[in-house]
């Protein structure tokens, strides 16, 4: 006890209070400086930043939904596979002459229903979120591959391609979508009755229940939101790749969870912010970008990201203890 308290005092004395209060912001600033120096300024070029954001928009969008679920002391492992399923559904309907709007709505609906389904298993059957969403992931991936015997769907109509390719006022549409989803998430969590419910349920489910919060509904909607975010991300990725792919972005689920964790949200639930998650995604994007600029082997990059997750979580944990 005593030795740790002196360590705390030492840590507190040495590290500026900014770090103690927001390690992510410091990490962000350090990364900007390091990246700029190492890339001899290339990093700060608008085209590099823009490319980076475009590339990570899908993960950023997923991570917003993931934040809500993790705040609820859960996790959504089905986002990646849900994206594959939505991608296939949207592409299938699009190439079979249903135009643009209907496939998009159908995709969002699939995401929402999938989330509601996971949520129902979790709240009604009391299956732990980890297992329920893992099962959901398998179901989604199975359905996605079943649709075409695992062949990608090509030949999407032109108007569907805007989401991954066009720009509005110089900003890629997917970046605009990411910003909108992010703002929506921030609004939902900080400005609505629902957001208060999310924090209460994640913090202490029983207390929330006895305070009159409809715990089941809060959870159901949380998983539905996560599913919808995955569906939006799926639309962007389908558009960018110009195909419906049953194997798209299997790894994105990990990155979306990583964004949330690096963003400072507690896996125990009840503590964290959507804005932190957005910063978390940007940090992951910057680290990858930096490593690309430095021509680091992509396979090693994966490992480095893993190490960074461990370091941030440890730092967060220590900070929580200091407080």
């Amino acid at each position, binding site marked *: *006890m*005593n*030795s740790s*308290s002196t360590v705390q*005092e030492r840590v507190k004395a040495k590290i500026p209070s900014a770090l103690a209060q927001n390690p992510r912001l410091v990490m962000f600033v350090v990364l900007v400086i390091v990246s700029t120096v190492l890339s001899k300024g290339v990093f700060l070029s608008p085209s590099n930043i823009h490319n980076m954001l475009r590339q990570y928009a899908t993960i950023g969008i997923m991570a917003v939904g993931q934040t809500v679920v993790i705040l609820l002391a859960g996790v959504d492992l089905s986002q990646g596979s849900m994206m594959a399923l939505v991608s296939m559904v949207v592409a299938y309907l699009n190439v079979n002459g249903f135009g643009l709007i209907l496939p998009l709505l159908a995709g969002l609906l699939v995401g929402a229903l999938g989330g509601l389904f996971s949520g129902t298993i979790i709240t009604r059957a009391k299956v732990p979120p980890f297992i329920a969403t893992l099962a959901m992931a398998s179901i989604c991936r199975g359905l996605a591959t079943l649709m075409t015997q695992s062949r990608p769907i090509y030949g999407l109509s032109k108007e569907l391609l805007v989401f991954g390719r066009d720009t509005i006022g110089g900003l890629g549409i997917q970046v605009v979508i990411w910003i909108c989803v992010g703002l929506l998430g921030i609004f939902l969590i900080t*400005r*609505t*009755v*629902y957001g*208060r*419910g999310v*924090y*209460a349920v994640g*913090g*202490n489910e*029983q*207390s*929330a*229940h*006895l*305070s*009159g*919060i*409809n715990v089941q509904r809060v959870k159901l909607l949380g998983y539905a939101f996560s599913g919808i975010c995955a569906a939006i991300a799926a639309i962007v990725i389908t558009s960018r790749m110009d195909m419906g792919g049953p194997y798209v972005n299997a790894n994105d689920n990990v990155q979306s969870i990583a964004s949330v964790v690096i963003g400072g949200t*507690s896996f125990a639930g*009840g*503590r964290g912010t959507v804005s932190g998650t957005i910063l978390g995604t940007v940090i992951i994007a910057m680290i990858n970008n930096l490593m690309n600029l430095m021509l680091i082997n992509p396979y090693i990059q994966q490992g480095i990201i893993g190490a960074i997750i461990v370091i941030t979580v440890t730092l967060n944990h220590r900070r929580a203890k200091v407080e």
Partner: protein
Amino acid sequence: MREGKTILEMKKITKSFPGVRALKEVDLALRAGEVHCLVGENGAGKSTLIKIMTGAHTMTSGEMLVNGTPQVLTSPLDGRELGIRAIYQELDLLPTLSVAENIFMEDVPKTKLGLVDWPKMNRKAAELLQMFHVEISPYSLIRDLTVAEQQIVAIVKALSQDSKVLIMDEPSAVLTGSELERLFGIIAELKKQGVAIVYITHRLIEVFEIGDIVTVLRDGENIVTKDIEDVTMEKMIQWMVGREIDEQFYKEKVAIGDVVLEAKNLSVEGMVKEASFELREGEILGLAGLVGAGRTELLKSIFGEYRLNSGTLTIFGEECRFNSPRDAIAKGLGFVPEDRKTEGAVLCRSIEENISLGVLAKKEFKFLVHFPTIFKKAVELANYVKIRCHSLRQEVVTLSGGNQQKTVLAKWLASESQILLLDEPTRGIDVGSKLEFYKFMAELVRNGKSIILVSSELPELMALSDRILVMSNSRIRKEFRAGEATQEQILEHAIPQELREAASS
């Protein structure tokens, strides 16, 4: 009484934390075979002191002698080595392991091959349990035991390694009646074996029942150490709070109004049997009974947490069927649960958020929150119930027990609950805060609210209630008016029939 050898002596112990001096030159001596009671309000320094004794904290200055030799403890392991053990309120038992495994957690008996010697472990555990005349199987899992039994296991665990000093931090908080007697029996046994016992309690009456000597701490200072024979309850409370307290309880005469809640034959499978009673405006209705008598269950079934199997509940003249607490809250009910940490508050969120929860659930706000409005209301209520904090954005986990409880209560005031169900609201709260809480209850009923109060502290229940219902075995057995019954009479109805018959035969 005073001939016991001094085992542990603390001299001029001072402990400073950054910004606070938690202990100021405290002296304390523990003798073999003596129960040394440690009392004081929350924040008086009791836990800091025992943590220094066990080595969990190191002192800033001062000296600690064990058997006459100065010792410097730097971790609980050092304390354990010297035979100093503590049993904290939150028992450090592992619920999914067996009794024997828990008892020998730190010193697992091994075979020659270095594997766990299960037969030996279970045999030794059984022997230890036998010493205390308790019927607990060494093979039972901790989670299958009652809290009282778990506590006994914790005591046995602490004693399995030849403890010289045993520190018990509020062991009685969760016990009632016969369980408490059993605990006292065990303490008496330990005294005979020459163990020095430090007993911390908020139930001051116990100090007189089992204490030999009492030390009162206030603001980190040792106010007094005296033999129990030379102390009175009034004096002790005075020392604790540092001023004269004219009353221990507080009750106002309030005009009793119409019936606000009427229960007829309420039954919940296995929990409540045919409970019938009424509650009137401005009334405090006490629920007496032993732990497990069904008092909490009755409150929870009124509050919609448990679904009624049969019976009718009429609130403000309207028959109600609640599917969840949410429905009950909408009808003007509020519930302060027994365990504020697991059921009452959301500890990792702010005071303001906790207070506002009840309002939000009452559907006054559908989707959007007008934050300035609810924040203003929260500030008002926090001031009203006098929560001591730096800011309402502070997490509830940082508050003391009393202030956490006030936060939970403020939640129900925010949602303008008319009927409050209070389950052991003063448990683990210090004397000063208790009195504040009583005054507060008086004010609530004066303003036309009604209260159902569950309390295991009979003097408190008797002083505050207008009527008392006594429960045992899930049934309401008897009703008393205020001042009509003695503690003995209430207890007589609280003890289940079978037990009484068993005792008399």
